[in-house]
């Protein structure tokens, strides 16, 4: 376990070092401000009444804090005829996101493992092709995909949405894992092969445990992409299978109705909470030096 900062001995640091460390924290803090700015606007707005928003400055602190908007967003905002807020849609999103994230991550890990550690002729070409797939604009796949889903009988269903998300997540998950696995010494695979472990066993017992940081990254990516996806969610769902983003969109985007910014903001934050939760939980596994001590040289 190495860190680039000086080893911390009993009494930490001299004056220069302390100053440097302060600078570091100040820098980190400044960036935190940059990142927090929009959240500040969103949170304050969500705590204001509509009246205050209409009359006051949009980016000022609320005069009277009210949680009304949050309540509305969660349980009574209209998303069409139903006025039950985001609540009913959460479950759809969970049903879509969780399996899709797990499947695409697992497949990506396997693919990356093959491409990085079991190179065969053409593996790089296959990898490049898969990777290039990341760039296909989703708008163009919408219509043919709709047709195929219809043919497969998956139109408007949750499995259909899972399928779509897995397919278009594969490029990225494979990319992430492959690029992580190429840095793992090939000797490990060799040792395990001699030990009698087969392809899958090596993957499961040796590589997966080594992959924590990249699993975190991949899960963060996939979960965010899938949870926040709107285009597929709106196109390949039907009444009853719509994900939370469609509900959020319905709350936020009214063309000719009265705009309730406070509810919009609260709804957006609520819709983002599961993703945030994933960040916090998964973040614990950003561990250093999993390969340490494995091979010499």
């Amino acid at each position: 376990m190495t860190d680039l900062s000086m080893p911390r001995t009993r009494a930490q640091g001299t004056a220069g070092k302390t100053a440097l460390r302060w600078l570091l924290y100040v820098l980190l803090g400044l960036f935190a401000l940059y990142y927090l700015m929009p959240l500040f606007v969103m949170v304050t707005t969500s705590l204001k009444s509509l009246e205050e928003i209409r009359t006051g400055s949009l980016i000022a602190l609320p005069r009277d804090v009210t949680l009304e908007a949050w309540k509305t967003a969660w349980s009574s905002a209209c998303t069409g005829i139903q006025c039950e807020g985001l609540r009913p849609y959460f479950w759809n999103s969970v049903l879509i996101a969780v399996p899709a994230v797990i499947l695409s991550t697992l497949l990506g890990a396997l693919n990356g493992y093959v491409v990085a550690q079991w190179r065969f002729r053409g593996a790089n070409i296959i990898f490049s092709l898969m990777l290039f797939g990341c760039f296909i604009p989703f708008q163009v796949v919408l219509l043919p995909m709709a047709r195929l889903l219809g043919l497969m009988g998956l139109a408007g269903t949750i499995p259909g949405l899972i399928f779509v998300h897995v397919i278009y997540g594969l490029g990225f998950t494979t990319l992430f894992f492959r690029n992580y696995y190429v840095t793992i010494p090939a000797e490990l695979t060799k040792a395990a092969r001699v030990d009698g472990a087969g392809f899958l066993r090596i993957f499961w017992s040796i590589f997966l445990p080594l992959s924590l940081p990249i699993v975190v990254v991949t899960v963060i990516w996939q979960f965010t992409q899938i949870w926040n996806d709107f285009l597929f969610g709106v196109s390949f769902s039907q009444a009853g299978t719509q994900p939370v983003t469609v509900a959020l969109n319905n709350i936020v985007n009214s063309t000719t109705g009265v705009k309730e910014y406070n509810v919009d903001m609260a709804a957006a934050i609520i819709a983002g909470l599961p993703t945030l939760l994933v960040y916090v939980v998964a973040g614990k596994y950003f561990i250093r030096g999993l390969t340490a001590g494995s091979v010499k040289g």
Partner: protein
Amino acid sequence: MAPILDIKNLYKNYGATEILKDINISIEPGDFLVLVGPSGCGKSTLLNCIAGLEPISGGTLSIGGKDMTHVSPKDRDIAMVFQSYALYPTMSVAKNITFGMKVRGVDQATQDAKLKEVASLLQIEPLLNRRPSQLSGGQRQRVAMGRALVRDPKLFLFDEPLSNLDAKLRVEMRTEIKKLHQTLDASIVYVTHDQIEAMTLATKIVVLKGGVVQQIGTPAEIYNRPANLFVADFMGSPAMNLIPARVQRNGTSTQVAIARAGGDPIVLTDTRDLHLPEEVILGLRPEDIAEAGFRAGAGVQEAACLVDMVEPAGADTYVVSELGGKQVTARLHAETSAQAGQMLNLAFDMSKVSYFAKDTGERLN
């Protein structure tokens, strides 16, 4: 019995570089084959080829009489200790060692027993719950050994398995490996740079140089009758003295003249019946040059030499003198009174001399 390992005309390239050239080796069951050779000569590569971890570029390789070309490493029934250890970083020491058994479906009780046995043998019991990253170099190496030793394969492959151990432990391990070899009648291919290991363990030694086999033989053959200058020079520490000499046949015996610094050439007589060219390289090991009076035997002959350097090394003292234009080392007992700059009477055991052709380096006698 069919050879357990049979390598025929094996070639191995990395890209355009030929690493192994026309290797032919065969091992009978129970053989202990030690591979030696300079760093980078292809020893590890050869082990990798045997294990099936690197594809071979030519020739055939069979284990237990079965061609191995399309057999994957896990089906070759081999155990291997990697020069680079290759421990599983996320597993504890115990798991590193038992992983192979677990994969093969060995039952838990046997696993535990084996683990216990091996751990005690390798003196790593207190470390079983550690991760590889929390071990010292030598401890890692022992874990790597342990991973192989719990197995019971047709063939063991050891790649410098003791290089990071202290002398004491190394001796113990050596003994254990020897025991393992004898009790299990296991077949072993073993790479080492330690000459004593090679000598004491091997039933057969292969000397490799630049990917080409130089000599295959028993330790005694290799040591006493090196096939060429390279083997002569390579085996033995300090190395065999290789001294240019002129020979003259004299009846059935041979007169050998060696230039001497600060004097006339030494002339020594080899009583064996040899047919040699006029110019040869004469090979004589340091231990076959002793202080006069400390060596007895038929072929022993004495000559005074100028001592250039005296190097005490615990049990022995080495003395260096220039002969035939070369620095010639003699191994004297520790209590010698030899001093640099003085003349010293040395005893040469001419019955041990090897002769090599000056041009090809091949052995002549």
